[in-house]
């Protein structure tokens, strides 16, 4: 309430003292969150400026590009490579359907890379146009905060410009982080992995998160030998354990060598490639080593200390529920706040910010039931709680419905890979608390399920929905028998 009054008060001031500032809003960083906030704020009538580093596929302190991680170094190029890699398996599958395809297939990495670059250039242009269509002033250069209402932009030629703004929004995102082991400079991060000159013959991927499994899948699908090293027993910490096990099995089934509970300790340059040494004493030679061991917020060169914007120990900007920092005129959205690092979440945060500050309507982003996808091959997608989370959070019993099946396509192709689906239901309320799926099309299938979950759909409502036949998705509405009933705190009551 207090927040709303404050904001309203400020809005009134804008009218009176509008001339006092160069901009109503200045955004540092033109990625998903920044562009969204800038455009929507401008649509509400605000005068908006935004700065972004010069375009380059590989990011650094001084290069970036309009579009940000998602468009240039994340979702989009990654998905393009996943598409490219998925054809590898598809072509194998085609044979039992009667297609005679040459044993030796020619895959041209350079062509794919070129087309990927063309596409992100195109998108970069579209984003710039979106901003200019919304009358947002775009400045190229590195933004720094030099006062609660003052921003300095260092242009590529070194000249510095400074602007005053009623509100400043930090949306600088994050960058891949390398663990400090000897020889770490020999490794690459996901930025470079999306722009390699040549397809690796033998790649080592270090990390168990979604980026690690996605790149492992991409390279394997394109024919490389891939070794995946991760610290835990299973990849994808934080996801449903049963799903993690399925992903691991599928990665292995597609020919990726898994090294669970294994750390890399050193990289050494040799004539044959990079020698990778593990904490188990293992050694192997790879031509590419990818570190996918996490990302860190881009806050170092923003000069936040000067104005006292608080950051946490990972370097993330601390914000309240409305994305406001401890300095009332400074706000932050997206990965730089390290809340939930997903493009659509940054979009939601940017939208809420614009509504709150310029739309006259205090809006908190809602982090419940946010669906997400891992574009491994085959992919994983989830929404809501994992089985483990449900058991932890629900007071009564949890009903778990699972279905593991051989997708129809595989009955002829002969591919040995099961699809698995799971619904986690609150036994008392019948509400579906979580849904997950690992198998072809999982991310596409999950979106509609996410709408249902977001609105508290019950298992009975799922059951009353007629299936679409023959699809994989229809399994979600035909799970009749409970696989297990678990009492809160993880004790299996019956294991039918």
């Amino acid at each position, binding site marked *: 309430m207090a927040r709303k009054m404050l904001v309203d008060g400020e809005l009134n001031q804008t009218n009176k003292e509008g001339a006092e500032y160069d901009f109503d809003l200045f955004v540092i960083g033109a990625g998903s969150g920044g562009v969204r906030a800038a455009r929507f704020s401008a649509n509400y009538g605000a005068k908006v400026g935004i700065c972004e580093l010069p375009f380059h596929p590989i990011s650094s302190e001084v290069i970036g590009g309009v579009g940000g991680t998602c468009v240039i170094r994340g979702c989009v190029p990654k998905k393009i490579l996943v598409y490219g890699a998925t054809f590898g398996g598809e072509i194998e599958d085609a044979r*039992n359907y009667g297609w005679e395809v040459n044993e030796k297939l020619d895959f041209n990495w350079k062509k794919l890379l070129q087309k990927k670059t063309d596409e992100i250039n195109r998108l970069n242009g579209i984003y710039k146009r979106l901003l200019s269509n919304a009358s947002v002033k775009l400045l190229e250069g590195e933004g720094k905060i030099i006062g609660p209402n003052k921003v300095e932009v260092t242009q590529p030629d070194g000249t510095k410009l400074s602007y005053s703004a009623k509100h400043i929004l930090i949306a600088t995102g994050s960058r891949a982080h390398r663990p400090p082991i000897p020889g770490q400079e020999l490794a690459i991060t996901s930025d470079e992995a999306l722009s390699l000159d040549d397809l690796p013959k033998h790649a080592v991927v270090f990390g168990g998160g979604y980026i690690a499994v996605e790149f492992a899948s991409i390279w394997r699908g394109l024919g490389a030998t891939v070794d995946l090293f991760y610290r835990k027993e299973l990849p994808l910490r934080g996801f449903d354990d049963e799903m993690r096990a399925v992903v691991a099995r599928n990665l292995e089934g597609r020919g990726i060598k898994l090294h669970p509970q294994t750390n890399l300790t050193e990289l050494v340059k040799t004539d044959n490639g990079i020698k990778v040494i593990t904490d188990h004493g293992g050694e192997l030679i790879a031509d590419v080593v990818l570190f996918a061991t996490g990302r860190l917020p881009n806050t170092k060169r923003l000069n936040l200390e000067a104005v006292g914007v608080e950051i946490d120990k990972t370097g993330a900007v601390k914000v309240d529920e409305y994305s406001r920092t401890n300095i009332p005129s400074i706000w932050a959205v997206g990965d730089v706040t390290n809340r939930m690092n997903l493009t659509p979440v940054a979009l939601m945060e940017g939208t809420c910010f614009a509504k709150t500050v310029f739309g006259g309507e205090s809006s908190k982003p809602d982090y419940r039931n946010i669906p997400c996808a891992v574009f491994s091959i085959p992919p994983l997608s989830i929404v809501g709680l994992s089985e483990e989370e449900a058991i932890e959070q629900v007071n009564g019993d949890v009903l778990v419905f699972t279905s593991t099946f051989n997708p129809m396509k595989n009955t002829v192709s002969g591919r040995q890979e099961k699809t698995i689906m799971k619904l986690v239901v609150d036994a008392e309320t019948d509400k579906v608390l979580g849904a997950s799926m690992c198998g072809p099309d999982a991310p596409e299938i999950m979106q509609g399920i996410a709408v249902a979950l977001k609105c508290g759909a019950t298992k009975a409502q799922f059951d009353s929905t007629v299936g*679409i036949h023959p699809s994989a*998705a229809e399994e979600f509405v035909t799970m009749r028998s409970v696989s297990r009933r678990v009492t809160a705190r993880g004790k299996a009551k019956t294991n039918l």
Partner: protein
Amino acid sequence: MATTSFTAPKLSSPTFQTLCRNLPLSLPIPKTLSSFSFHLSPFLSRFHLHHHHPTPRFHPRRLFAVRAESENGAEPLRHYDFDLFTIGAGSGGVRASRFAANFGASVAVCELPFSTISSETTGGVGGTCVLRGCVPKKLMVYASKYSHEFDESNGFGWKYDTEPKHDWSTLMANKNAELQRLTGIYKNILNKAGVTLIEGRGKVVDPHTVDVDGKLYTARHILISVGGRPFIPDIPGSEYAIDSDAALDLPSKPEKVAIVGGGYIALEFAGIFNGLTSEVHVFIRQKKVLRGFDEEIRDFVGEQMALRGIQFHTEESPQAIVKSADGSLSLKTNKGTIEGFSHIMFATGRRPNTKNLGLESVGVKINKNGAIEVDEYSRTTVPSIWAVGDVTDRINLTPVALMEGAALAKTLFQNEPTKPDYRAVPSAVFSQPPIGQVGLTEEQARKEYGDIDVYTANFRPLKATLSGLPDRVFMKLIVCAKTNKVIGLHMCGEDSAEIAQGFAVAVKAGLTKADFDATVGIHPTSAEEFVTMRTPTRKIRQSSESQGNMGHEAKTAAGV
């Protein structure tokens, strides 16, 4: 039953059976009992004389069934061979039989001998869906989609020294091996559920008796679930035409095929043959394909299919087929004659299999299309005879037959009168690109609700920007202006069928556009477009025809 093997383990799951068997023990006497109390005492006295099932725990479940009989008037007490005799072991029949057996009934089902081509004397356990419909069709769709994928893959850097060639016989052999496996699984499922399977042609002799090839079986209830068969109109030369049964099992690739019809079967086969590199001509009576579907979807899918090389001949009706000396076929239409077809396929509708079933003689009413008339509980005009699935020509979809079969088993043997719910039944067309939909078309919505908001998106998916192919995706949401409820959802484009299912749950649950908007997208997917449609394309108000275009949201913005 998208998938094949899941069906088997799931359907026969001991878990489910255990649940069903055990559940009633702990159930209190259902509330519905009171409403049946009028019929209760005659029933109970009768029941105790009926020793078919020794366990008394099934008593309450018989109530509805008995009520049915008592409505039919006083009938002498008799012993039946079975509680339920099902004629036809397709989707609906198998579902009803299994569930009935799980609820404790003694059940028999009869089915014709297996053949990929159906007739008066051939069929097979699994029915249309498994043997001559959904499953083989989808396998053929998978096979045919590869040619498009090969094209796409070129744009992603894949190259083939020699153009991939398709070997028809490999596909047919592998497809038929799968069908054999599935029919076996279905038999197994029935067997495990304790259903007696009888091979042969069932015929109704009287309200409680079925004749299977001369042998008589009595049953308290008879279920007709004999499905439908393709129908070919009687024109000169129609004997040279094939139907979808034959089209799914051709001995060799059709070089040049004419498909007559504009419905979903016609479009699916057009995609299949086109993908398997046949030359495909589609002849439709109307201006557009897919009558009954949303108009924009009809336009869109026609355009997309034409871009993939299918030739549409609109407003062109077949009049005769002529076989030339060289064996090729010519199709004579109202507009002229096209020659040189290796095959002419008719996809001109399906008819219920109600002939020679003895229905008329026992008083089961059949409508003019040959479909059995049933009430909301799937009961025919003869109280002891019921019908589900395509033979009733309600909504002819496998999952609907399953729903009807499950509802019937509950009604008859679980003392829980259950009507199938036909609202918001989603469906798909496995054309290439496919269609997924649920709820009303724009035209229906306009009629029913008057004031509606329509949101559309027509975009080039990420994959197509790389492949360079002209593939696009079309999506549409229809929202009731008064309640904000999403009353229709339509999509044509890759993965439509898979995408529509989850949204069907949302539409069925009566969710609003605001609920859609509150859902965060999954990026980057096509499906996320359904939760990021911010501006209506048009607002339709009864007062003024249309508010026209509300402005353009750049779709290329990838949601930003």
